[in-house]
């Protein structure tokens, strides 16, 4: 007993958190005064916004705001409960119906937080012992969902269908060795429509072929492509002309094109209904505040009534081709992706120095009236950390002159900082 007392006396734990250096790049946030709309006031300076994911410009749309105001007058702000316990409002049911109708699926389910949507959906279906094939460049929310599910994760190279097929074939040979286990092991492929980390589109038609050949289910994450791809903004399935029933689950967040908060999953009732009892972020968390749901409904109305907004976005994207001519910075991402990355053509050796260099470029632009930001990552937690980059977001509200100004400022900044 004496020894035990001594051990207890002697043990010293680590401090709860290590100290963070004062000049850590992620510690000093930009302060936005006022609404983060097209003209944004950052750190006291008025700039044109090239950093918020407000693709269709619905953030300060008057109709959306008045719909939210009406909802505020009727319901107050919070819902004071999860969906199971008096937290289901008629606006939630209406939003789910509208989303299901818009995406042409049987059912939709809403979450109150965009990150939690895919992070709760994956563990609801995939459990310990199941196999998930996921793209290397999948976003952090998908990684957390996979971690929570405790399944076997197999990463395949970004957008490399040959690599994926190799993994699937390997799995097939494994299955033949143990057919009894194979009969109960579920398989999933998780991909994004438009990748946040690289701006690329996933090759969905090939994936569908692989799906039927190897009997794997597909979960598609469409946070960036909802409202952007496809003739009406229905996402990558409309873009490629694929039958939506071929995708088992589509998950998206409403925080980009719909300029609200939260996320949704849509698909057949057989699949979506399961999340109502086993989606952690749905059952154990308060529901979405009604004013945000009403804002999303109105934004959806506007998207449906004005499909030309989506077309105008595509035109804006064509105009930003001048970004490709900046020496020292290369553009990463498809030409029709509204969220692009600008990476250094040549790294200067360490990630820290690259980040510092890009910060100087960003500061130069901010001082001259273009608001940009670096793409932020948790360096130690990401499975495949993307290289440091500047995020450029093209929205429907930016004019030709503003795009030209941004491109020329970036050119100047790159020249002055990198040379």
């Amino acid at each position, binding site marked *: 007993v004496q020894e035990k007392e001594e051990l207890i006396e002697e*043990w010293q*734990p*680590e*401090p*709860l958190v290590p*100290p*963070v250096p004062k000049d850590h790049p*992620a510690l000093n*946030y*930009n*302060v*936005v005064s*006022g*609404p*983060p*709309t097209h003209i944004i006031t950052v750190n006291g300076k008025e700039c044109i916004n090239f*950093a*918020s994911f407000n693709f269709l410009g619905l*953030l300060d749309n008057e109709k*959306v705001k008045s719909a939210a*105001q009406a909802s*505020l007058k*009727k*319901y*107050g702000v*919070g*819902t*004071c409960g999860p969906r*199971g*316990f*008096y937290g*289901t409002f*008629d606006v939630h049911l209406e939003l789910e119906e509208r989303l299901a109708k818009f995406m042409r699926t049987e059912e939709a389910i809403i979450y*109150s*937080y*965009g*990150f939690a949507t895919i992070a709760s959906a994956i563990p609801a279906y995939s459990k310990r012992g199941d196999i998930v094939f996921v793209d290397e460049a999948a976003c*952090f*929310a998908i990684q957390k969902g996979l971690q*929570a599910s405790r399944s076997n994760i197999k990463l395949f190279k970004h957008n490399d269908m040959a690599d994926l097929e190799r993994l699937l074939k390997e799995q097939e040979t494994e299955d033949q060795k143990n057919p009894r286990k194979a009969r*109960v092991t*579920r*398989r999933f492929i998780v991909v994004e429509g438009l990748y946040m980390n690289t701006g690329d589109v996933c090759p969905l038609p090939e994936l569908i072929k692989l799906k039927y050949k190897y009997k794997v*289910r597909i979960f598609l994450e469409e946070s960036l492509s909802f409202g952007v791809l496809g003739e009406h903004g229905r996402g990558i399935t409309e873009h490629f002309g694929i039958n939506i029933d071929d995708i088992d689950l589509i998950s998206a967040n409403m*925080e980009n094109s719909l*300029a609200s*908060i939260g996320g949704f999953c849509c698909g057949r*009732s*057989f*699949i979506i*209904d399961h999340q109502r009892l086993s989606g*952690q972020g749905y*059952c*154990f*968390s308060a529901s979405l*505040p009604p004013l*945000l749901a009403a*804002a999303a409904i109105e934004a959806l109305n506007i998207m449906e009534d004005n499909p030309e907004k989506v077309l105008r976005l595509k035109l804006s994207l064509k105009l930003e081709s001048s970004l490709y001519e900046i020496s020292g910075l290369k553009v990463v991402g498809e030409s029709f992706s509204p969220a692009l990355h600008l990476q250094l053509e040549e790294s200067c050796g360490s990630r820290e120095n690259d980040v510092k260099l890009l910060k100087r470029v960003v500061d130069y632009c901010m001082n001259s009236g273009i608001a940009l930001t670096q793409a*932020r990552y*948790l360096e130690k937690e990401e499975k495949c950390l993307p290289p440091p980059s500047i995020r450029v977001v093209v929205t429907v509200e930016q004019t030709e002159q503003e795009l030209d100004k941004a491109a020329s400022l970036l050119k100047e900044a790159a020249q002055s900082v990198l040379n």
Partner: protein
Amino acid sequence: LNHIVHNGGLYKRPFNEAFEETPMLVAVLTYVGYGVLTLFGYLRDFMRQWKIEKCQNATEREEQKDFVPLYQDFENFYNRNLYMRIRDSWNRPICSVPGAKVDMMERVSHDYNWTFTYTGRVIKDIINMGSYNYLGFAQKAGTCQEAAAKVLSQYGAGVCSTRQEMGNLDKHEELEKLVARFLGVESAMAYGMGFATNSMNIPALVGKGCLILSDELNHASLVLGARLSGATIRIFKHNNMQSLEKLLKDAIVHGQPRTRRPWKKILILVEGIYSMEGSIVRLPEVIALKKKYKSYLYLDEAHSIGALGPSGRGVVEYFGLSPEDVDVMMGTFTKSFGAAGGYIGGKKELIDYLRTYSHSAVYATSLSPPVVEQIITSMKCIMGEDGTNVGKARVQQLAENTRYFRRRLKEMGFIIYGNEDSPVVPLMLYMPAKIGAFGREMLKRNIGVVVVGFPATPIIESRARFCLSAAHTKEMLDTALKEINEVGDLLQLKYSRHRLVPLLDRPFDETTYEETED
């Protein structure tokens, strides 16, 4: 540990918490009830398989019938055969502000709850004993709503960016300073979702090589956060300080399981009020233990912030302790502030670290501006900074309502769990049939209650849970009590034999969640 033996030394007020033992006959009958339901379940499944009964489940696509089945048949047995029978007690749609009285959309089912249709009628003015509206801030008019409306027209509803990129508004900074002042800590940070606050920040604080000591009945978000962190998790019996101390001693003396190296850190996860039990954490003892064994304390005040304490500052104020003793004070804005989101408060180093390394700051959208304004206005009201006494009056009203309601229910003879001062009141039902019956009977009498069964509670301990609010007037409570009395007689729910056993050793239920070893 002799300074804990004399409870009076650490506790400045009496701590009355009790969980009356389940009467033996009731327990037996409950098991019999579940047994009958299970048998019928097998029978119905058999009939569905042989097409004698129509199968109303949604099914897999024809093209995908040869894929590995998505759900195991047994996984859904409980869902198909027990939950489906009383499904109408949950997910009740409402169409008004979730205040003390609420309007509900009437729905009927013609096929035993497989599908619902809305009749179009609205049941008005149901007394709401299910919403988490402790201080009555769920209002559709008043200073909070006006302020939120102003901010909504100025800022819009969404933010479209993360905190570290372009989503840090001046409103967020204002909110965080206010929260820090409210709690009495150096610094605070706010997040968009209460659930995500736990599941995204615990992994940032602890990792492999650390030990988490978690209460048996912790919320799913704490369990998920602990699992995602990769640390070793050990569970101590609910609110049982001897169990906690034993685990602490063993951990320090024996070190990590295979390598015997000392643990890097020990983090204790507790909640202020446990929402299914109505119990309050024994905070003075936990803090004394934490100091003796040099571990860190993470306090989740989701239900207790605003609801306990003479000025609504939570369980720390309730016990008269200092907020500096709690390393990480976490809470949510959904319950007492009528908004949405969560926060973490603590020392400046902690919050600076979270600003840099929290998953939510880097990858998740920040709080919506009108929601932030609602929190700011309601918090100022509770603190009395809006120039009125409204906040203080509400806190006192809630405490009075709690004591009155609990006393009357106990007098009637129901078994009520939890602490005398907790506004969460679980009333034991036990038998599966009574779960559905209680919910429906109360709705017929225009009172909305929440009933909970397995798996949120142990299988024989299903209960009805009342959440009191400062917005409930004495008349509403009296009406509710009268109806509960009637229904209690009708359903024979008055099990109490007034034999209160303090701190019963509750059996450890492994279905709650698993322990992970390195």
